[in-house]
């Protein structure tokens, strides 16, 4: 589904990604871990099409297409979804209002009929249950005055509504208490499907107890320095990242 080959990217003239290689197949859940500043979030934003992140070399093939030439909205319509680490607040626009417009843009692109107001509300009712979100919140201005947990639930809600093929979760666990973490992870797990891939970016092993990945990759200094199965997370938990840092330094 997704092939990242030797991806290099700069942010404000500083190279952050220095040759990422990653293969993600349909139905798989991958976790990307790594210390702060290793390039995890940059990778997520590059995949979603952030314009001020400059790709200097490498390629990304998504479902046989060159992803890097596509606009952010084209990627979204092709099934890529990014759950933000810091969801933006937009006063004056409710979740319901913008999500209906977004869903219909996506559906139109996929050759599906647009949903009318009633159909959309029925869908929202079903999906808000999935993330245990108060109906009142979705009619309030987007994320304005929301708690950290409410913002993250809103991200997973949007993901559930937009029905992506490849979901990128950027530190969705940050700032969550255990209850919120359980709900958010439950929402994500409900979306696991054999034709959908999920990439979970996290700093901590904790989230991976709730969303159990098929593969784990450790990012350090802009490269994948270690890949393995879920047991790798436990090793990281007990040894910390320093163990990998010294190992990487020895290789280089």
């Amino acid at each position, binding site marked *: 589904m997704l092939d990242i080959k030797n991806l290099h990217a700069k942010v404000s003239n500083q190279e952050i990604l220095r040759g990422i290689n990653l293969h993600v197949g349909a139905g798989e859940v991958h976790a990307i871990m790594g210390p702060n500043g290793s390039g995890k979030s940059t990778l997520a934003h590059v995949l979603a099409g952030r314009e001020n992140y400059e790709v200097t070399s490498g390629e990304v093939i998504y479902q046989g297409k060159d992803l890097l030439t596509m606009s952010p909205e084209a990627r979204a319509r092709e099934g890529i979804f990014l759950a933000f680490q810091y969801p933006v607040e937009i006063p004056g626009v409710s979740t319901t209002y913008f999500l209906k*417009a977004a869903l219909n843009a996506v559906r139109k692109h996929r050759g599906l009929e647009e949903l009318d107001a009633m159909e959309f509300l029925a869908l929202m009712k079903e999906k808000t249950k999935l993330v245990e979100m108060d109906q009142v919140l979705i009619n309030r201005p987007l994320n304005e005055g929301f708690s950290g947990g409410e913002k993250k639930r809103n991200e997973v809600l949007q993901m559930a509504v937009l029905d992506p093929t490849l979901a990128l979760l950027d530190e969705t666990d940050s700032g969550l208490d255990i209850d919120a973490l359980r709900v958010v992870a439950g929402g994500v797990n409900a979306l696991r499907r054999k034709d959908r891939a999920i990439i979970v970016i996290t700093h901590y092993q904790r989230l991976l107890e709730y969303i159990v990945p098929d593969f784990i990759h450790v990012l350090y200094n802009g490269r994948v320095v270690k890949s393995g199965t879920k047991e790798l997370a436990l090793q990281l938990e007990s040894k910390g990242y320093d163990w990998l840092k010294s190992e990487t330094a020895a290789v280089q």
Partner: protein
Amino acid sequence: MLATESKEQYLAAFNQSRSTRSAGGPSWLEELREAGIASFEALGFPSHKNEAWKFTSVEPISSQSFVHANGAAQSLDANEILSRSFVDAESCRLVFINGVYAPEFSRTQDLPAGVRVQSLAKMVRQNDDFLSVHLGRYARHQHEAFAALNTAFVEDGAVIIVPERCRLTQPVYLVFASVAGERQVMSHPRILILLGAASEAKIVESYIGLNSGTYFCNALTELIGGPDALIEHYRLQQEGDAGLHVGTLEADLERGCQLTAHAVTLSGSLVRNNVHVVLDGEGAACVLNGLYLGDKRQHIDNYTEIEHAKPRASSLELYKGILGGSSHGVFNGKIIVHKDAQKSDARQTNKNLLLSANAAVNTKPQLEIYADDVKCSHGSTIGQLDADALFYLRTRGLGLEEARSILSFAFASDVVARIKIDSLRQRLDDYLVARFRKP
């Protein structure tokens, strides 16, 4: 045309109207007009040297000549006038075409007893004593050139009187439609609103241009709010592409009176809104709410002045502008707290969103505080659409243009939400959605 020539032209027009004006009109009105033209002769058109006109040139008005129109020669469609001006078909309304009352489009049934909603010209013909007492009491024709011109040429307009303790629940609409013909027309509508003690009213002035020709509309409203009166006043402008508009609201609020005054400018070539509110009694309060949308080469200037004249009065002001194309917005917010106006509370905010590199805005707060125990705050911002918010919406599948339109709409939303007439707010919402969707 030189400014002096232009001034002469108005003086000549006045002399001509003086001789042709039907004899037998009330002498007090003739005196008022004479005072108006004398003020204008002394003042002339304002220039950039005048602090209140620093960012706005009146040259489009002063360099052209306009004639009075006598109603509309061509046939007009009532439905078009009403829908364009955001007015419900069942509403109470007075409609004016080029400043002249048009009874065929108006509707004044079902008003509570004692409430008067009438054409000014008609009341003048009836020689109502009431008018001689109140007309011109608060307009500052000695200081304001456009108030002086309006006063000199006062003929028609609207008078609304709501007696004490009367609650007028349905809004009253005043529609001023301009129709430019072969000759460039001007109108000087005059509106007098008098609200008795503890009365309530919602009044909407809606100005529209029915074609793309050049015209000049110079409207002046005097609003007198009695003790504890509750007033919502709306001024909605949708002038034509070449329409020139100067609109003035002079409001005097007595003890405990609360006024919410909205100024919404959606189109017009040159628009200047003057709002002057005097909080003239203890505990009087005003909320000024403004929205201005600029496009093409439009120039929109909002000049507001709030005078805290008595203690414990409050003012809350929020004006927002969205400027695209090569449009130019101006906001000037003056707050004067007089010496005796202790415990005044004044808050002012002006926010501007620039949608294009060629759009510009000048924003200027002006505080003059002569009392020592007051709360006063002001803030202004000028910015562009938030890049993070744009990216966020695009990652959900919304195209760049749609994301921009949603964020522009969102920027205006808190001002729109303050509009308490449901049908008016809904029509404005629909208008904004359609306008921002345009590529």
